[in-house]
């Protein structure tokens, strides 16, 4: 079919780029405010994608609209923290502008985020909505040494000059002059740095696998999708220290032999997008990206891509499919991205926080990084703390820090007159901890011993005024909304659990209710095809464990 001249130039501009589809779709979405049928037809023929497939893929993403008012209509965060802060009322107040709800937009430390076109506003009511910078992480009261946040408060750090003046890119310089790729791999393995995106896989081991895997070009993908509710740490890094992430990616590329990189940024961070675009431009001008980096025969190009509203696109297989322009279902594993990643070639997918730690580790050594942890634990972890707590925000903790220290000494404890009823782990994915289990230390083995996991490090606090069944319902509704719909246990299970937590369906006998919810959860955990469906039942399992009385009251109350 003939492509209209109007659309041809945009398509031509993108056609030969790697990971073109998201770029093209955003270009049209930005131009028109929505994706018209004519545009979709033209993109399908321009990029040679079957029309039905492209149409289906577009409907997968929450933020792509196919009709006006489209992009300009406000989207109001109704995530777990914002709904404690009155997001339902705000959504209602903006209804006349065509407002719709969106999942947690990653600003739980400064609610309520509202997206309007490319403007990320925040405010608790219509009158107070304003565009405001991401809150800068506070220093911890004990003056405990940091890694990622050590330099983040230096003014102008987000700019190349400011970064350079505060020691930035020295790690790359040093590496290029003094180290072989295998030495870098060795050093990363020694540091015991593990993935900070949720799965905790040792970074050095991952990079080594990419380095050794056959096939070129290899890729480094920075996972900046940060979709887990209650997580907003990557946003702080990207907004205040973007060059640290770029430097981490350059080091990863050198170590693995990758020639190209992608930053996959969630749609809900338009400010970060602009900052990253600028940082990439600066780094290219300074010859840290492109051909002949550091005067060596080392080439690394970096591409920035925006997601379009899908939590599952943070899962690495789904992310890679999304980048490749395919329907963003997770991939079957094995094979893993280290051998079959972007375009089926070796790829290291790493979280923003993981990559930001890399230059520091290279500069100060693996022993230094390891020593930052408490007891036998290595390194630090960013925690996004939000909900019913005096000082919400991002904190960099030494791994192994007691949860109590973080909650009470660092973050000021619960609001006056309140006590802490429960906290979540891993945003929502780790479910709740409560009672005696609040006496944990923040490290993988300890958290896992309570049946949960640290994940990406989001902790949401619920005080004693909250109804935990309602909280669990909001949480499960999120997983149901974000389930990709590929595998049966998660597609159906998240829906059925949501209905039962809302009492829209399900038994009214508490014994039957518990048996149904437990059976669904057990089968989801054991048989789901990816982490979303495996983790979602942590919500109902921990609810049943810590709050059986609230559950009984919920099931037995008259409708």
């Amino acid at each position, binding site marked *: 079919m003939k492509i209209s001249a109007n659309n041809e130039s945009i398509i031509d501009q993108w056609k030969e780029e790697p990971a073109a589809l998201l770029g093209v779709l955003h270009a049209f979405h930005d131009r028109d405010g929505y994706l018209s*049928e004519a545009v*979709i037809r033209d993109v399908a023929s321009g990029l040679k994608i*079957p*029309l*039905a*497939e*492209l*149409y*289906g*893929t577009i*409907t*997968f993403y929450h933020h792509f609209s196919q009709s006006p008012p489209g992009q300009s209509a406000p989207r109001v965060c109704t995530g777990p923290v914002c709904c404690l802060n009155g997001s339902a009322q705000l959504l209602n107040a903006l209804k006349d502008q065509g407002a719709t709800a969106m999942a947690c937009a990653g600003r739980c430390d400064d609610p309520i985020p509202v997206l309007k076109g490319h403007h990320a506003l925040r405010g608790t009511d219509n009158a107070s909505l304003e565009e405001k910078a991401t809150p800068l992480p506070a220093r911890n009261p004990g003056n405990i040494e940091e890694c990622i946040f050590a330099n983040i408060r230096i003014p102008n750090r987000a700019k190349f000059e400011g970064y350079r003046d505060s020691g930035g890119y020295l790690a790359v310089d040093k590496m290029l002059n003094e180290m072989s790729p295998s030495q870098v791999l060795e050093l990363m393995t020694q540091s015991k740095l593990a993935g900070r995106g949720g799965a905790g896989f040792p970074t050095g081991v991952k990079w080594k696998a990419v380095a050794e895997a056959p096939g070129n070009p290899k890729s480094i993908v920075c996972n900046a999708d940060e979709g887990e509710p209650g997580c907003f740490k990557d946003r702080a890094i990207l907004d205040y220290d973007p060059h640290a992430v770029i430097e981490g990616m350059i080091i990863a590329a050198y170590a693995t032999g990758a020639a190209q990189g992608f930053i996959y940024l969630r749609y809900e961070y338009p400010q970060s997008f602009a900052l990253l675009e600028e940082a990439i431009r600066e780094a290219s001008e300074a010859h840290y990206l492109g051909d002949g980096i550091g005067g060596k025969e080392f080439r690394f190009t970096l591409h920035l891509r925006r997601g379009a509203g*899908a939590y*599952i696109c943070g899962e690495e297989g789904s992310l890679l499919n999304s980048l490749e322009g395919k*329907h963003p279902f997770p991939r*079957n594993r*094995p094979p893993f991205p280290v051998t079959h990643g972007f375009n089926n070639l070796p790829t290291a997918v790493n979280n923003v926080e993981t990559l930001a730690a890399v230059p520091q580790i290279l500069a100060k050594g693996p022993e230094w990084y390891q020593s930052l942890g408490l007891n036998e634990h290595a390194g630090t972890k960013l925690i996004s703390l939000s909900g019913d707590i005096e000082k919400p925000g991002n904190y960099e903790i030494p791994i192994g820090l007691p949860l109590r220290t973080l909650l009470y000494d660092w973050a000021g404890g619960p609001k006056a007159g309140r006590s802490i009823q429960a906290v979540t782990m891993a945003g929502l994915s780790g479910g709740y901890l409560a009672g005696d289990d609040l006496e944990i230390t923040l490290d993988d083995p300890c958290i896992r011993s309570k049946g949960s996991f640290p994940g990406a490090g989001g902790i949401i606090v619920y005080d004693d005024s909250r109804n935990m069944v309602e909280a669990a319902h909001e949480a499960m509704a999120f997983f*149901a*909304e*974000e*389930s*990709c*719909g*590929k*595998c*049966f*246990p998660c*597609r*159906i*299970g*998240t*829906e*059925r659990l949501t*209905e039962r937590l809302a009492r*829209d*369906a*399900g038994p009214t006998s508490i014994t039957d209710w518990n048996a*149904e919810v437990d*059976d*669904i959860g*057990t*089968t989801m*955990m*054991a*048989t*789901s*095809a990816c982490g979303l469906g*495996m983790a979602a039942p942590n919500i109902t399992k921990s609810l049943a464990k810590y709050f059986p009385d609230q559950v009984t009251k919920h099931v037995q109350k008259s409708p």
Partner: protein
Amino acid sequence: MVSSQSSNITLDGEPVSFSAGETLYEIAKRQETIIPTLCYDPRLEAFGSCRLCMVEVDGIRNPVASCTTKASDGMVVRTTSPAIEKHRKVLLEMVASENPDIAVDPLRGYASQELGTLVDDYRADTGRFKGRQSGQSFQDDDNPFILRDYDRCISCYRCVRVCAEQEGDYAINIRNRGFNTQITTEFSGTLKDSSCTFCGQCVQTCPTGALADKKAMRAENDPGEIKKTRSVCPYCGVGCSVDLLSKDDRLVGVQPAMDGPANQGALCIKGQFAFDFVQHNDRLGSPLIRNEAGELEKTSWEIALDRAADGFREAMKTHGRQSIYGVASGRTPSEADYMMQKFIRAGFGTNQIDNCSRA
């Protein structure tokens, strides 16, 4: 790579050898070990979505999908256990809960009984896990061939995959996500307005009858058992194997033979849906010739063939042998084609012979 050592896994306690690339499901199938599946079609790339085919592998915490897991040397695999059977039953109860009911007429399609059979085998309680229904039937798609009864859809995407991988038409895809997924054409239109060729393969792979053969369904309420008779599609020289469905000796539908050597379960619109001529009132039951008044009337084969031969002789006599041109039907088998060219070449002495299916 040729390895001198043979590779083995232990399958339910028995050592079994395998070749590189084989999946656990394929090995089990070869051993005649039955593993339940819903999203699986042996002709398609394994997808791993229904999770019913899960098996336990020593050293791996969660069960794995046997359809997507390749065997590796030394794996110890159990295809069943009390935990696995419980998961399978719960999964089937979950699947059953998304549809209005499970029983459908087998005339709907080749695989239409898969879900119902499993639900029965596992004695799954279809009333458990009640809740919202998934999928919405497309009532307004008035094409005469394919019923799009998505109320019964379980989002296995076999239809989408067969259309892409087997037929190469990419006519249908998946709209939305999670529990709201829905099979769709571009812009949610009708099949007629899409690139669908009405090959019917999506119908025949659908494990629930959500996609159904409208033509065969006309006989749903006819008396009699469904009888299947293996035959060959009469339309073209490919020779697709078909199973003719009949009730009381009346042809009511056609299904592709999954083991047909030429088609492996594929058919085109003609072989699949265009069988009404067989029992049509207008179909010729005896030869016809024109009478003096130019009207067609019934006659015997002798008289009809004599009349045709006279015509040929007359043409030869008046216009010469080059006035004869033979075109064999694309539906004829090779033996008949041979006879035809012999008839033209030896009978009339011309090489003007062709076949309509050479395009």
